[in-house]
């Protein structure tokens, strides 16, 4: 893969230049670190990973599927904005990959339109940015259009895709040739491989799953903070003046609440917290793999960091005998 170089002193200038042609989204440090549209390139913050995942930019928290007036349906025009995302870590790049699989397979026009003209520029973690990280325990791949590797006074930039090639051509003034090599070892993030068991398929009946559950509040912070969780529900909202008119809306939902499996007649299939907790972990580390050959989980650790009672499923799995 082609390796280029960018001097750090030209970095902000580069982002300013990107901003003139594209909407630029990158992590900023407000109350917490989050991805935001960048007004000032100097706001870009790369010390820590974003507290919130990036998924809302593609798989929106709320999406209007269509508007209706009686039985007449109108799908809103789908925007295909050209956006450059800078500073996406390896975990989140892979999370995008996994959601790409889900929404490409289901031919989701809303997701695809958000993704179509989006450029993904990654930022490699030289060390695990949080104590909860375990991306090294999962088989993550390169998925950025451009990947930035931080090297003291410069960045090495790996061109990953055609889209990435387009960006370096367009902003060629900011990139120089490099003889450097980015080896497999360079891509390993130290201190991020704490999940010891890779196959949990035989552990379903293990009594230790209960360990986490007593503390669970069913608050669903874990699933909303997860960069890969993609469950949703669909409901109609009508206008107060004219109940014939309204919108059908898709929004994120969470398998951690009872209502997730509640059917007409009020029967709930996963009534117990333990069943719901296990369902989440198994979807992440087993079910998705059965269908798609890869784990859904990317090891960002956000579900653990966001949990108000700090249920650490990695520790629970590691301690299972």
């Amino acid at each position: 893969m082609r390796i280029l170089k960018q001097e750090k002193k030209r970095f902000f200038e580069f982002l300013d230049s990107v901003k003139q042609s594209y909407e630029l989204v990158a992590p900023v440090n407000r109350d917490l670190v989050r991805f935001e549209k960048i007004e000032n390139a100097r706001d870009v913050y790369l010390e820590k990973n974003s507290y919130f995942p990036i998924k809302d930019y593609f798989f929106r928290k709320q999406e209007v599927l269509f508007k209706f007036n009686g039985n007449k349906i109108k799908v809103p025009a789908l925007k295909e904005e050209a956006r450059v995302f800078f500073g996406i870590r390896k975990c989140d790049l892979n999370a995008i990959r996994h959601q790409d699989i889900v929404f490409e397979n289901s031919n989701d026009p809303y997701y695809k339109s958000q993704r179509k003209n989006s450029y993904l520029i990654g930022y490699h973690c030289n060390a695990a940015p949080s104590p909860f990280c375990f991306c090294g325990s999962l088989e993550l791949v390169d998925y950025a259009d451009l990947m930035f590797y931080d090297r003291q006074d410069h960045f090495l930039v790996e061109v990953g895709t055609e889209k990435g090639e387009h960006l370096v051509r367009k902003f060629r003034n900011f990139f120089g040739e490099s003889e450097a090599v980015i080896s497999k070892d360079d891509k390993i993030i130290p201190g991020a491989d704490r999940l010891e068991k890779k196959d949990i398929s035989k552990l379903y009946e293990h009594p230790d799953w209960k360990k986490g559950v007593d503390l669970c509040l069913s608050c669903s912070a874990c699933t909303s903070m997860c960069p890969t969780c993609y469950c949703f529900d669909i409901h109609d909202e009508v206008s107060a003046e004219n109940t014939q008119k309204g919108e059908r809306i898709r929004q994120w939902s969470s398998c951690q609440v009872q209502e997730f499996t509640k059917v007409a007649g009020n029967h709930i299939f996963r009534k117990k917290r333990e069943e719901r907790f296990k369902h989440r972990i198994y979807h992440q580390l087993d079910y998705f793999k059965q269908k798609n050959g890869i784990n859904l989980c990317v090891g960002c650790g956000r579900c653990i960091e966001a949990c108000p009672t700090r249920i650490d499923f990695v520790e629970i799995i590691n301690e299972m005998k």
Partner: protein
Amino acid sequence: MGKEIKKTVNPFVPRPYKVLDFHRESTDTFTLTVKMKIQHEPGQFVQVSIPGYGESPISICSDSRDYIKLNIREVGNVTRALAKLKANDTILIRGPYGKGYPMQALKGNNLVIIGGGCGVAPLKGIIDYIENRRNDYKDVYLFLGYRSPDDIIFKREMEEWGKKYNMQVTVDKNQHSQVCYDAKEGFITDALKNSKLNNENKVAFLCGPPIMMKYVTDILKQKGFHDDQIFISAERLMYCAFGVCCHCMIRGKFTCVDGPVFRYDEIKDFKND
């Protein structure tokens, strides 16, 4: 069939169809006939919409290229809104979805059809299917259980079924001692237990409340049925119906794509998963 999503079609958008007939079956159930010309298998379902109320997955209970019949019980917002429809109204539908009963592969067998309450609806799809291909299958046994005589659905069709097939009907309670299709008081499980059924060249199709399906499978096993001779139709909450929203997931399987009809050995170990 119905599984290939066309690349140009927005999979969330339903299309309008004309209601041909509304028929009240019991106090809280009705059957809609809709002019929707689609190829489908028994056991498959469609997503039916009333804008402003939402969508509901409803199984197809007919076998025709010209229309579909939907038997619906009024239990939620959408189904109560559907109950207000009448002939010539328009209804929004997308589908068909899911994997139905593998009728082709089961040609030449004797069929045991066991349904409870509105679980009889998808099974009626099989009965209509057999009706159109009577020579492909041998003996047909029907075991239909309802809570009370008032809850019996498909009364119009049952008279014919009684003549053509080995049919047994039970009601949990017959409080007013109503006369009704020779329905015995008791559970369908008792009728099944007392029957002389064995597993010889037979397959069983089940649909009903989870507790009924559990006991019925136990009895079938006692009568010698193997796991792969039993097919059950599962019910789950679902929104998308094409394997994305995850609400209908049972362990790693999607009820909407891998089901709703499962061969018993595929899901027998699953409890509240």
